[in-house]
């Protein structure tokens, strides 16, 4: 048996012994997701047991080095680990912006001390982070941001406001883009880290079209940030910000694969009924679903190839923009079909049978996929410029 086969067996046995049955059920509600953090309330014992077991092995962040709370797996091992998780439909033990976004940026730009200090609590689910990038006047054109940090010797005094800050009201800390040099657009931003409980930080939730309220306006009123709490170099935060966006885009693109839904047509044939020929009994919808299934199976192959290349440094550095564009447009199409398949039942907004309008709310939520983390149009601009090298882009 090769080493990788042995590893697969080891993981399989470990999962069998440690992943509780409840944690192999599909995610149904937002509170099925373990976000961690100071104020996180576990939904049940299984969720906590599963987190603890994974933390002990470094499996919340399997490919991070061991000193930072990971399991130190190689890309091949990580792929096997994920395949085995998927095989038993195991839920992710911990999801967080710390894992998806800040972690990779710290691994690349952080000092040794910062890595040990910040990464371990992320891996253990102790500190939950939010992302302070967008401002009312700076969305796609992020580099125009105005939130300002005034230099006071050993600390900055930060004033300004952020918007669309996901989970700002639930997060413990924020990673935040702050202008520290007004004369220099690109080289005048510092990538700061600070506690959301700092004096002068307030948040105001915003209601989304889905009726949920996961994001906020975030205000900074003379917030003091010690001059040790930044990543990379002072005034060179844009480099860190862009690198982090690459990881954010990669993460958001994952939605395109569709999780546990193997085939949308297969799932709906049951609800719709089939005709005498054994076909989904609505020929045009069947055709659209089948064409969609082709694109999903294709996108899963793309996801596999992208990850294989990304993790081994073979991918074009801008290719996560392509993944995000293709994956999010696909996910939006999926939810349009889910609504069509569900008919009038899928329109129900708060009935018990529809789990509080899960389909309608989910459909509306996916519309943000091609906006958050950079819009589809911005992704296309980046592909045109950085990959196709088109002029003036």
């Amino acid at each position, binding site marked *: 048996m090769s080493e990788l086969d042995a590893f697969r067996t080891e993981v399989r046995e470990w999962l069998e012994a440690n992943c509780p049955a409840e944690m192999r059920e599909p995610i149904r509600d937002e509170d099925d997701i373990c976000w961690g953090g100071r104020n996180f309330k576990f939904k049940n014992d299984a969720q906590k047991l599963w987190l603890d077991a994974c933390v002990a092995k470094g499996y919340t962040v399997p490919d991070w080095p061991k000193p930072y709370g990971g399991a130190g797996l190689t890309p091949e091992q990580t792929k096997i680990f994920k395949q085995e998780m998927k095989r038993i439909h195991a839920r992710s033990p911990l999801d967080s912006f710390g894992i998806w976004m800040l972690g990779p940026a710290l691994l690349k730009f952080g000092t040794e001390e910062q890595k040990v200090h910040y990464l371990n609590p992320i891996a253990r689910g102790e500190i939950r982070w939010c992302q302070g990038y967008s401002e009312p006047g700076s969305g796609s054109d992020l580099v125009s941001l105005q939130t300002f940090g005034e230099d006071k010797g050993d600390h900055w005094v930060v004033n300004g406001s952020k918007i669309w800050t996901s989970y700002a009201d639930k997060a413990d800390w924020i990673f935040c883009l702050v202008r520290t040099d007004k004369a220099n657009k690109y080289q005048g931003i510092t990538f700061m880290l600070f506690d959301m409980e700092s004096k002068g930080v307030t948040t105001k939730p915003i209601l989304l079209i889905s009726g949920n309220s996961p994001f906020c306006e975030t205000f900074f009123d003379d917030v003091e940030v010690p001059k040790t709490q930044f990543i990379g170099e002072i005034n060179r935060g844009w480099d860190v910000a862009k690198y982090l966006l690459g990881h954010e885009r990669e993460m958001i693109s994952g939605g395109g694969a569709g999780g546990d839904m193997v085939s949308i*047509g297969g799932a709906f044939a049951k609800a719709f009924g089939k005709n005498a020929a054994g076909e989904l009994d609505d020929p045009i919808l069947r055709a659209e679903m089948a064409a969609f*299934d082709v694109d999903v199976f*294709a996108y899963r192959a793309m996801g596999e190839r992208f990850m294989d290349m990304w993790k081994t440094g073979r991918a074009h550095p801008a290719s996560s923009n392509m993944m995000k564009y293709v994956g999010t447009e696909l996910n939006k199409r999926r939810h349009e079909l889910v609504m069509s398949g569900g008919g009038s039942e899928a329109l129900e907004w708060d009935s018990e049978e529809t789990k509080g309008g899960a389909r309608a709310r989910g459909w509306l939520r996916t519309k943000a996929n091609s906006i958050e983390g950079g819009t589809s149009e911005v992704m296309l601009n980046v592909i045109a410029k950085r990959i196709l090298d088109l002029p003036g882009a």
Partner: protein
Amino acid sequence: MPLYHNDDQAMLKDSVAPFVAEQAPVSHLRQLRDSADATGFSRDLWAQFTEMGLPGMLVPEAHGGLGMGHMEAGIVLEEIGRNLTPSPFLSTGVGAVAALAHAGGTQAGRWLPAIASGEAIVALAIDEGPKHRPDRIATTATRAGNGFRLDGKKSFVLHGHVADMSIVAAKTDGGITLFAVPKDAKGVTADPRRLVDSSLASHVTLDGVEVDADAVIGEVDAGGEILDALLAATRTGAAAEMVGVGQGAMDMTVNYLKERKQFGKLIGEFQGLQHRAAHLYGEMEVARATVMKAQQLLDEGSEGAKLMVSVAKAKAGRAANLAVREGVQMHGGIGMTDEYDIGLYMKRDRALAEYMGDVHYHIDQVARMNGY
């Protein structure tokens, strides 16, 4: 296995890509077309392919081949696609080899070494009407003497008029049976037609063709499985060739966007074109990954291969079609001219799209394989 080429495969690509680009660029196709070539490909070029061992890539080593996989064959096909090279590689080196190697037995022993040595060209006589419907084969094989008598009509048989042997799928009492019908068999007529992409495909008539019992490839009535192997290999190969066609068209178009000026600017500066080019890039990347996945699953002998092969043929079909349509459009008037190569890409794409099941056929297959 990671889904990118390993070192050996990368080396293969490094030797095949310049070889095809130098020996058989698009001008090679033009030359054959303009001289009204009656063979459909260049025998000299096929001899060069043979020197490199290409016809026998998929032939098992025991039969004198290289025993490589679909991933490797795909590397060659992509270059054939990119250069629009007329070649019997797909039918002979991929489809026929897959069927014969799967079946084994007398016919495999007879033909596989001949394919590997470049001596034999093999055609695939599967389709019978304008659309690919392998589940509705009407050609019959009835027992006669110590062999069979074949009757029926086949269409879209590439290289059918010059092939040393044709693999004919026919109905027998208990199922489908594949036959190796040699070139000189009595009662076979091949009527070659010039297609839109300048290739030659025959309407083949089988009128009381008598073959010996040992002309059967594999076992009588058990040809369904062999046919499946042939189709999976050929569809995957056609998909790989389409990735080459699409990539060739896209590269040519993106270059044109960087050269052509209108309104005092390079047209590649217009966001209306940038976004479409970037969208096309994404579709082509996805198609490439999908084709590689199908090749990998076929090479592993995985159960999931059949689904992925249809996904690959459909996805590569959509992506390459987008590439050639955007290609002609973004070239403006010059894209409509015969002198310019982009139109040739559009023509080849159309022929490959139809070959062994078009996008619609394979989307339908994907629905069926998923139970709806």
